[in-house]
């Protein structure tokens, strides 16, 4: 139940505790509740656990992480 992979929100329906979405997990499309992720919009990537979106993925933060990794070996010493 815990191998949660990111999925992309395709559309949104309902409101409040019935707010839900169809989410594309790399080609497998499943229904997920968005009741606890009110900020999520169509096109966002979310992590879904037990059918409920628990967090939205932040693209800027992801890019910062990737940039940081790409820069690692450009430096001779461990950056700190």
């Amino acid at each position, binding site marked *: *139940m*815990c*191998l*949660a*992979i*990111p999925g992309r929100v395709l559309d949104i329906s309902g409101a409040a*505790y*019935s707010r839900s979405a169809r989410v594309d997990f*790399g080609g497998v499309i*499943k229904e997920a*509740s968005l*009741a*606890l*992720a*009110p900020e999520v919009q169509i096109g966002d*990537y979310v*992590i879904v*656990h*037990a*059918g*409920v979106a*628990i*967090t939205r*993925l*932040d*693209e800027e*933060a*992801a*890019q*910062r*992480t*990737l940039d940081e*990794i*790409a820069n*690692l*070996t450009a430096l001779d010493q*461990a950056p*700190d």
Partner: protein
Amino acid sequence: MRYVDEFRAVDSVQRLAEEIRKTTIQHWSVMEVCGGQTHAIMRYGLQELLPEEITLLHGPGCPVCVTPQSYIDKAIEIALLPDVVFCTFGDMLRVPSGDSDLAQAKARGGDVRVVYSPVDAVEVARVNPDKDVVFFAVGFETTAPANALAVRRAKDEGLTNFSLLVSQVLVPPALLALLSQPDCRIDAFLAAGHVCAVAGLDAYHAIAEKHHTPIVATGFEPADILRGVLHAVRQLEAGEAFVENSYERAVAQQGNKTAQALMMEIFEIAPKEWRGMGVIPASGLALNAAHADFDAERRFGAIGAAPRRDCGCISGAILQGVKRPPDCPRFATSCTPDNPIGVTMASMEGACSAYYQYREGGSGHER
């Protein structure tokens, strides 16, 4: 950005592994808390990319595995009652208890149904008003929001035939319990990123400080796990111990406030028994007084003590990182995923199952 391939890129993995090698001087044991991370470590052979000074210990973070046997016994008992529909995640079906499991309860006529979400179990209750529908609510902070949402929706719809058999556990008190053991070998934790995404990082500061142990919130892809290790090793080599967020794209310091609010509307913090670790204070969730009507233990009797059954399984020690699956003489001989003796083999996310699938000659290799 697809948030998957980018964090599996060979180039990134190699850069991180190289950086860890450059950073590491002393010997360190780093525990990944979550079974999903254990799985990724085995699947991508990440231990082999690390310098030999670094040992990865596998933690108690498989919710199926830490659910005590007494709860499995109770689940089987309820599932066999007439006019009950017992709903569960598929992972729980093969968890052995004595010589039975939920799959056998189903074969013996119990109405056991696998659902993907507790919210689906509410739907089962809605269309079966003449049945008592029980959902086996196991999990960490990651599934607690879904279980809380199920109760809230059942309540809003006025359903009186829905209840939860609750075995909800909380991670921070378990980390504290592990660190408090006299023979503790853990130098740093990779905290489970999705648990942190729900609950935030606040609860970890006191633990990191008290035991001078770095705690690094870490994701689940190969680059995420190595980056978590790198950040932990940097702290260790510098003699530092603080809470660090290495899974920034998914984890906010405060976690998911909406989910936390609903969890605390439905549940309260309670002492909880963990398999292999005994009762840990304030380490679980129970339905609060306002939602006691949704408690399956109220309807079907409280969970008792399980009879002691000694089957030679060392999953208790494995869940605490004290032993590894190959240390068990039954591993991959008499104990396999098709015929699991213990819970860490029966659960997909258990350490024994991860070692089995990705062992030399196993089916799951992908490196």
